[in-house]
């Protein structure tokens, strides 16, 4: 059971959060200009990394804020959290 450091509320139990999948996938500004393949890339394609992964979490039973998490999926260690709109920390690739 993770202990997640919500950037707005502090450390809370995982049961207060819901996971929102991969982070930094930006919704295309002009979807109608995209080919089927390009749209499918946005819509369906997600990484499933063993190692350091950037993901979105929502403090759904808390402040309801979405934020980003850097997590090592091989040992579940959360390496960093940062707010939506902030740049991902550069020391993780």
């Amino acid at each position, binding site marked *: *059971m993770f202990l997640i450091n919500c950037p707005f509320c502090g450390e809370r139990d995982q049961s207060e959060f819901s996971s929102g999948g991969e982070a930094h996938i930006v919704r295309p500004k002009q979807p*109608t200009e995209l080919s089927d393949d390009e749209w499918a890339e946005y*819509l369906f394609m997600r990484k499933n990394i063993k190692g350091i992964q950037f993901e979105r979490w929502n403090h759904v039973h808390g402040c309801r804020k*979405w934020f980003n998490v850097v997590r090592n999926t091989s040992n579940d260690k959360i390496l960093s959290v940062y707010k939506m709109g902030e740049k991902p920390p550069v020391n993780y690739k």
Partner: protein
Amino acid sequence: MPNYRIHKTEYIDETKRVSFKYDGKTYFGYEGDTLASALLANGIHLVGRSFKYHRPRGIVSCGAEEPNAICQIGSKKDLTEPNVRATELELYEGLEASSQNCWPNVKFDIGGINNFISPLIPAGFYYKTFMWPKSFWKKVYEPLIRLSAGLGKSPTEPDPDIYDHKYVHYDVLVIGGGVSGIIAAKMAAKNNLKTLLVDDKKILGGSTIYQNNESIKIDDKLSSEWLKNEIQEIKKLSNLTIKTRTSIAAYHGYNFLLAKENLTDHLPEEKKKNKIRQRLWKIRAKKVVIATGSIERPLVFNNNDRPGILLSNSINKYLDYYGVTCGENIILFTNNDSAYETSISLHKKGIKNIIVDLRKSASSELIKQAESLGIKIYFNHVVTNTFGYRKINSLEIMRLSEDGNTTVGNKIRLSCDCLGMSGGWTPMVHMHTQSGGKLDFRDEDQVFLPKENSEDQISVGSCNGDFDLENIIDKTVNKINKFLDIDNQDYQDTNIICSKEYDKRNIWLLPNKIPLGKTKCFIDFQNDSTAKDIKLALKEGFRSIEHVKRYTTTGMATDQGKLSNMHALGIIADTAGVKMGTLGTTTFRPPFTPLTFGTLVGRNVGKFFEVVRKTSMHEWHVENNAEFENVGQWKRPWYYPKNGENMYDAVQRESKAARDSAGILDASTLGKIDIQGSDASEFLNRIYTNAWSKLAIGKCRYGLMLNEDGMVYDDGVTTRISENHYLMTTTTGGAANVLSKLEDYLQTEWPELDVYLTSVTDHYSTASICGPNSKKILNKLFPNLDLNDENFPHMSFKEDKIENINCRIMRISFTGELSYEINIESKYGHSLWKMCIEAGKEFNLTPYGTETMHLLRAEKGFIIVGQDTDGTMTPSDLQMDWIVSKKKYDFIGKRSLYRSDTMREDRKQLVGLLTDDPKEILEEGAQIVSNVKSKPIDMLGHVTSSYFSPNLNKSIALAVVRSGKTMKGQKLIIPMENKNINVTVSDTIFLDKENKRLNA
């Protein structure tokens, strides 16, 4: 009655005699006993039958690893518990226990015949034999096998006991209260760290607490005396919490652990009453010290499972802790020094004993001590067979060959009434591996050890492979200082004398002249798997340890292979000719020992099992005999039966009344989201498929919300209350998810939008009145409100007061009737509802539930998201192209509507179905086909909604059918179990296509 209690100990209170029943017979023990020690004191070894061969089995151990002495406690239907280990169960007055692996009884067991046909029951026997005919498994084989193998009985009535959960946070958690755990806890607590020490036993001290050998000393005291002092010391520490009778069940990531505390299991019946039985501790610790110790290994030789054969160290504990000897003529069979401690202790109390040692020679102080006491030792010998049916009475030993692979010389037969086995020690690495830690294999003594310790977790003591007392204390102190980053000097000058040595001669499967196929060398006592079974599995091609485990069921019983897994691995490695370390281990899964469901569930039973949401009108519905339907967590009135009506009759009556005069529905559960901000209109434009910018203030509009993949996600009516203020309604079940989704887009994709969302579902209660007389009822409730169609048309909104309380009134309709929804602050909901009912009396205003609502909307062909859709329906599939704006540049899901797959013409599409026989009601979920002749039959779709319409006096249905849009008028077939039902595809709107009723 024999008495094997031969001396007094400080742990047994002989002034407090306790009577208990075992298999119906009354015995006595003392306070401080476990059920096992009390049975042994009464000379009882035989406690059960083995699972497969029904061989007599006796107590083997003194702790959690016990495979045989598992019993059924209590006999009441609500208060009986199976699979309780007698070695852990503390004795109390009035305890009733019975052996469970036998039928009809433990001394005469019908399944014992399996023992004699055992050559016919190899590994995988059940898989191989009880296969055919298939139907026999459920009806014949399984019940018979279960009856004779009696795996314990579960209670058949609700558990009356109270269970509790508690969350705690600590700086340091120490698991295990033996020497190393006590040292670790003391060091942590003295350094001002908030510390929790847990131990599964009644008292702290582990196996050192009853140690009494003069050659093992700390600071010139017996190690047990020294430890008792330490325990007194730590009890004084204010920031140390000690929890005994508490075992860690699971170790999850981020140092989150579950512990079970036994609070009343050791108390007599009358003292248990109204007390919490067990508490589940949910522990978050910054740092965890694992000091779970090790357990002794059995040895694998022919007939090593007879009653009277125990682990050597357990014999020692029964003697020195409980004052009970396991026999009067004991043989100890060992490959290391530990058995000598037992031997010397037995000798001191006058119990005759002999040692059979696998080693060629050994010369530690301990062995010299035994030799000087005149204890007979057979070095380089191996036990090759044992005798005695219900209890061991003699055994045979032979000399080992130079390489240890075979036996040589003559058999020597020795008589005995008890045999102790010591195959060395297995570190309890369960906690370490459960938390995700990896293991290393140490070749010298063939043990798996924690590979690495992380910054927030460490293993110390014998669970880390440190067996020597000097090593345990020194290493623990050094490691804890480093781990907690402290500088504790308490143990700087501790002087330790330990004369034990830790060399051993490890042979996994002991040699024998008898061919393996004719031996019974048990590895897993509880599941009856033998060395032969493991070898057979390998012969049949199984290689992975995980596969061998499942095929032979080794390690899969309630003891989870605590005594057997290592031997299984060892024999596999030897047979396959590989190094044991390369095989890995099977996975150590929680819980460490079985947990009761009660403990896991805690207080969440009965009405606390699940959250229940009720509307403010709920009491009225209850008083008026409503049947309720669960919608998410909500309780919604389903229908209101009158005078013993069934659901069908009630729904027919309610539906008719709603269309003929007036009906009223509690619509409070619909999700309500308050949307405000200068960009609210733009936000709705992006969320819904239709256009919102031009919606006038005071008007309502129906909206369809898609997922980004183009599939219908939710629907509902949204009202523009003012320029920058909307009230959105969602489906009852979808409310939370819709809010979440809207927040997601607002926060992550469109943070530039000035929009604020608030869930107001619980803040407003809603009464929905429909039917031709609804306007008259509204007029009575709101006499000043202009209800004229021109000023208050369909899809519009007005505010008014009722008894000075604000109401929001929407003229919207989900039934196709003239209909008004009155929203009021929830605290007034109940009063409003009663006023509506009162005002409606003269118009036969009929309360109706969700079932009638579903019927009425189906007559109008309105969809229910989640019933007529299933996450694969586009607006076009629902024949709702009219609601998808062509002009808007973008909205959620728009691009997906032009994907090749969503544009396919042969998608499943929503249609109406009319049965040829108008009385025939289709089953929801029924398959739809066009013919039943050519096989395989092509499935075209399924029925999503089906009712008998009292207003049309015929059966109607909605369905999704492949290319349905083009099939109007076509004949289709619904094949049912006994008949084929003929239907015709129709329009989805069955009633009032012209919407005359909306403005009636």
